C-alpha cells in the first residue's frame, strides 16, 4: 500500500525541508521506492538540501501544465537508486497549483512509488492547502519553543479540519543540556501540550548544518546520533517499534572518556 505523507509545521525555519530530505532518503535506504515533492512553489529548497540543484530541468508546475511528462520531471538521487525528487518551480507563485491538481498528482505517483513525501511550505494559506490536499498522513515538525509549538497546534487543528486526523509529531533541535537545566521544554513536555503521538525527536546537532552545506542528508551517516534518530523515524513510519535515543548519552560517554584520559 502506497502512502502520501506531508511534512508540515506552520512556523518557518523549524526544519521541515531537512526533515523531508532525511525521511525520503531514510525510507529509500530501507528499501522503499520514494518520491519527494517540494510543494514550496516560488521558494524551493529541497533540491539544495538534497544536493540535486544542478540537475533540475522540469518542475512540478511543468508537470501540472503538461509541459512535460511526469517521469521527465523526476530527478534521480545521487546515491539512492530508488529515490526521486519532483522540484518546485522557482519563478511561479503558489496560485499556479490547485488542491485538485495536487490530489491527481499524488494519485499518479502512488502507482509508481511506495512513499510520496511532500515538503509543505510555511504558513496556513493556499500553499499549505495545496500541499496537504493529496496526503494520507501528516507529520508535524516543531522545535521546543513557544512560538513553534503554538503554530504546530494551529496546524494540527487545520489538518484535522481537512480530514488528516492523528498527525504524528517530530520534535526537532532538542538540546539535552538545556532540558536538564530546566531552560528548554523536553520532548515529553511538547507531547503533553500538543496531545498527538510522537514519531521522533532530533537533537540540535551541528552535523546537520554541515550535511546541508554539502547537500548530503545526515541519515546516510549512521555513525552520528542525529542520523540514527532520522532512520529511527523511518522505521517507525514502516510500523516498527523502535526505542527512543537518549541524546544526553553521548555527552555522558565523552565525559567519562575525558575523565579516564585524565586519570
Amino acid at each position, binding site marked *: 500500500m502506497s502512502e502520501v505523507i506531508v511534512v508540515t509545521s506552520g512556523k518557518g525555519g523549524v526544519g521541515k525541508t531537512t526533515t523531508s530530505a532525511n525521511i525520503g532518503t531514510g525510507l529509500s535506504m530501507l528499501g522503499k521506492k520514494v518520491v519527494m515533492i517540494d510543494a514550496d512553489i516560488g521558494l524551493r529548497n529541497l533540491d539544495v538540501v538534497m544536493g540535486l540543484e544542478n540537475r533540475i530541468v522540469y518542475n512540478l508546475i511543468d508537470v501540472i501544465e503538461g509541459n512535460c511528462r511526469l517521469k521527465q520531471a523526476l530527478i534521480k538521487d545521487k546515491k539512492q537508486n530508488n529515490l526521486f525528487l519532483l522540484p518546485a518551480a522557482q519563478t511561479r507563485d503558489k496560485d499556479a497549483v490547485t488542491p485538485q491538481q495536487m490530489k491527481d498528482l499524488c494519485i499518479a505517483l502512488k502507482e509508481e512509488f511506495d512513499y510520496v513525501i511532500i515538503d509543505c511550505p510555511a504558513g496556513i494559506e493556499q500553499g499549505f492547502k495545496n500541499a496537504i490536499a493529496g496526503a494520507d498522513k501528516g507529520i508535524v515538525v516543531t522545535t521546543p*519553543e*513557544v512560538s513553534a*509549538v*503554538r503554530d504546530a*497546534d*494551529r496546524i*494540527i*487543528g487545520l489538518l*484535522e479540519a481537512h480530514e488528516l*486526523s*492523528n498527525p504524528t509529531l517530530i520534535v526537532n533541535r532538542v538540546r539535552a543540556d538545556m*532540558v536538564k*537545566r*530546566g*531552560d*528548554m*521544554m*523536553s520532548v515529553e*513536555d511538547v507531547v503533553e*501540550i500538543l*496531545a*498527538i503521538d510522537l514519531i521522533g525527536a532530533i537533537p540540535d546537532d551541528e552535523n546537520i548544518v554541515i550535511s546541508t552545506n554539502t547537500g548530503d542528508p545526515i541519515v546516510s551517516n549512521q555513525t552520528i546520533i542525529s542520523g540514527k534518530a532520522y532512520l529511527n523515524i523511518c522505521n517507525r513510519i514502516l510500523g516498527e517499534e523502535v526505542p527512543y535515543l537518549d541524546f544526553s548519552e553521548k555527552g555522558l560517554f565523552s565525559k567519562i572518556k575525558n575523565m579516564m584520559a585524565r586519570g
Partner: protein
Amino acid sequence: MALFNKKTSKSVAKDRLKFVLIHDRANCSPELLEQMRIDILKVISKYMEVDEMGIELTIGAQKSDHSSRQMPTLHANIPIKNMLGPKH
C-alpha cells in the same frame, strides 16, 4: 539552588503556552470574552440580580469524544444576589 527557589524558564514557557493554546483552540481572545461577559450580563439581568464584579467567564478544556485532543469549553460562574419577582 536555582531549581528550588525560582521557576525554571521551561515551566514558564509551558504555562504561557497552555494559556495561549486554550484561547487559540477556542478561537476566542480575551477581548471577545469581555464582550461576551457584557452581553450575558444584559440577558441574565432581566431575570435576576447578579453580582457583576463576581462574574467569572473562562475558557477551559475538556476531553473530546472525536479526537485525542481536548475540546475548549466555556465556564461561567455567576453569583446571584436576588431573583427578580415575576413581571406584571
